[in-house]
């Protein structure tokens, strides 16, 4: 079981130029608004930082390390997260998130892939579900989207 990889893929079209989308997915000040409570990371290959998830029970926020893997504006951005503090992230101990941006008309198609050990993905999902429970308003105001679980058949 531990040796099995799992991957989730999502695609979404955004009516904004790839340069703008790239900033939103890769810069800490934006990242903190679409993901955790806090993000401290430089948008630089090899940069180490962390994100923080508030805990529903009011205990200290859970801090999760993050390392930037690729920064290729405005097309590709990737990072590893969810490994133990002090460890070097690699395929064996972390989740890899890749954003690929493709210009489509005046907009951008985002293709997001998260890959890692299945067990680890589940742990991360639990962590995030707790976070989403905590920030109850977050799921509320966003538009509902078709849910893709598993491998999305990429349609062009």
């Amino acid at each position: 079981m531990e040796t099995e990889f799992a991957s989730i893929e999502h695609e979404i079209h955004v009516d904004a130029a790839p340069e703008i989308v790239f900033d939103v997915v890769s810069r800490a000040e934006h990242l903190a608004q679409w993901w955790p409570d806090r993000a401290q990371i430089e948008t630089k290959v090899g940069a180490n930082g962390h994100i923080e998830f508030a805990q529903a029970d009011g205990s200290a926020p859970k801090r999760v390390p993050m390392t930037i893997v690729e920064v290729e504006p405005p097309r590709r951005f990737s990072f590893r997260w969810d490994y133990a503090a002090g460890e070097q992230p690699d395929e064996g101990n972390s989740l890899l998130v890749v954003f690929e941006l493709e210009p489509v008309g005046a907009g951008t198609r985002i293709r997001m892939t998260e890959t890692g050990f299945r067990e680890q993905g589940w742990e991360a999902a639990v962590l995030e579900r707790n976070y989403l429970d905590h920030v109850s308003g977050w799921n509320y105001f966003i538009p509902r989207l078709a849910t893709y679980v598993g491998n999305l058949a990429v349609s062009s």
Partner: protein
Amino acid sequence: MTVQVDDDLWSALGDPTRRRMLDLLLTVGASTATSLSEQLPVTRQAVAKHLAVLDRAGLVTVAPVGREMRYRIDDAQFARAVAQLAAVGTAWDARLARIKQMAEAIQRAQNETNNRETRD
């Protein structure tokens, strides 16, 4: 190392016939391939194949009863799969929707600035 993109569990839940089979196993309890096929528009052979997929994913357990095999839901694995799959899916949906919203707001603000500059 090759990344295995195809996840047994997720593809197991991705098939509508298998989801109906899981529904049946949840409602009527342990069943044989024969009894399942009587309640579904598929052959016993097809049901057996689907059961093998569910078995590989750990979603059902199997035990011999007389000459037939009887399948039942593995409660722990099933509950876990459903909860976690939902969490993974909605988490990234929520995040990407938020990314979309933020990028489009920035783009609109930029367009307005540009329009104003061309007008002035």
